[in-house]
């Protein structure tokens, strides 16, 4: 296996994630897209760690998994709160603050 295969894969995953964040209207799907971005990072890190014979990339990946979990927890809580107030999680309705 070559390093660049992993890097390309991660880049594609990252792009899908960004695309998802940009186009999805459903709050939960946006959260999932963010997960894709973070996982793309993880793949990068692990690929580099393996290539460099260095452990810290893998350690970092573990940290990112933990951080992603915390982030999704908070994100879901906020989405829930919005649902409770507005009965909708369409993010395009969230534009009271503008200008």
């Amino acid at each position, binding site marked *: 296996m070559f390093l660049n295969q992993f890097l390309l894969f991660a880049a594609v995953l990252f792009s899908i994630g960004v695309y998802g964040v940009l186009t999805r209207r459903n709050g939960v799907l946006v959260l999932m897209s*963010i997960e894709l971005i973070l996982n793309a990072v993880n793949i*990068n890190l692990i*690929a580099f760690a393996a290539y460099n014979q260095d452990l810290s990339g893998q350690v970092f990946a573990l940290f990112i998994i933990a951080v992603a979990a915390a982030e999704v927890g908070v994100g879901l809580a906020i989405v829930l709160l919005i649902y409770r107030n507005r009965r909708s999680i369409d993010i395009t309705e969230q534009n009271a603050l503008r200008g």
Partner: protein
Amino acid sequence: MITFQTVANPDAFEVPIVEWGALSPLLIMALAPILLVTVSSVVPSFKKASLPTVYTAGAALLSAAVTATLWSDNRLLMDGALTIDRFTLVGWLIIAVGVAAIAMLLDNYIVKQGYFEQIIEWNVLLMISAAGGMIVVAAQDLIVLFVGIEVLSIATYVLVGLHLRKPIAQEAAFKYFILGAVSSGVFAYGIALVYGATGSTYLSEIATSGRNSLGLNPVVDSSLMLVGIALMLGGFAFKVGAAPFHSWTPDVYQGAPTPITAYMASAVKVAAALGFARVMHDAFGEFSVDWQPLVSVLAVLSLVAGSFIGLAQKNLKRILAYSSINHVGFILIAIYALDEGVEALLFYSASYAFTVIGSFGILMMMTQTEPVLAESDDEKMVMIGANKIRNLESADGMTLDDLAGASKRHPLLAGLFAVLLFSQAGVPFTVGFWAKLQAILAAVSVEAYLLAGFAILAAVVAAVLYLRIVVAMYLKSDDSEPARTNYSKLSLIAVVACVLLTVGLGIYPEPLSDLVTNAGS
């Protein structure tokens, strides 16, 4: 000097020495909230009156005091993951003192908004977030930096949305969260690429690994590094709110509870800016010719966006939000100047932090109404679930016009506000003047004359931004009576302290400039 472990020799793992003494300011800030949660759940009476506020402010000030005792330290901690130097310590001091002031502002806010039940949560999250900020300032390792940024941000997302009955706060929290999470992803992607290009996450090793460390095709190798720098730059620019990554700032600042806005504009922004400067300076110093033009462009865009869009605003919180974007422009100028700008960066950050805390604090105290739960035909009514309820925090909707006659309704607060606004405008005899002067001097000393000239012009335009507020308070007469003054004493103390610092250091800035001298590494 720094050893790190590889798969090849797992036996060599040594537990790094933990220097508790040097870490204690950070530990106090991180452990105090845990203690607070524990104690308040065991002893319910702890929620009484201002006790949690006093506890938080006390813990933060203790952290600041311990920071002060470390003053002459300059060393690496935790196997090189953190560093204690003047730069770190000044940053810690700003964050800790800032948290104390914010906690005191929250005292007024929570009671007035009827959130007394949750007073523990507000304070706990505030301290946890601040601990994250302190990690960011001290980090010498990208992993630690990332964790610090996430602790700082995630706690802040929650704080922004913690006003459960205010829908725009949730909208703000949601926007901040989505954009923040994406920017964290971008930032982490950048770290991954830099790690790939250099094989290390330590700033010092990244700096020494040069442009061609992987031994691959040099173009590929450097491009990994450069794209990594670009992504990290984008991530940092988002966190500090520099244009064109600023668009979240006005929305989130407006929607967030005002004391939290003050926190985001001060401690969060300062922590991110210092982390930004540290990484750019320590890790990517060799690439400075590549990224310096970008930082200068970000600075100019921030100066322009901050002052010009600010002029088109009517809402006070948004005006202050745009003004904070303008301030970021000056901070970026100091970052641009590298070594020459370190002192200016710290001076600006410190003076900016307490000026902006004071400003938002006064705005909060001036505009807060009593909670009104009864129905009214006001447009400020909002639907919350099935109930119609009046928007509780009028500060969100305060426009310049609403400020007319404020000098009569709140004579003391209006006077203090004017002083802080003058400081933000950079009027002489206030600390803001010295801060701006130093940032411009830093640009001059690295021969960035265009940037310096731009900064002076932007300062002139931005001065109008602040003058409008003062004019609205004073010149527009209104037959207002003095309002009932039942502000929280603690909040008033915090605000007055900010103003005293602003004026005192404006007349005699040497103490603060002493503090930041020799902060360059």
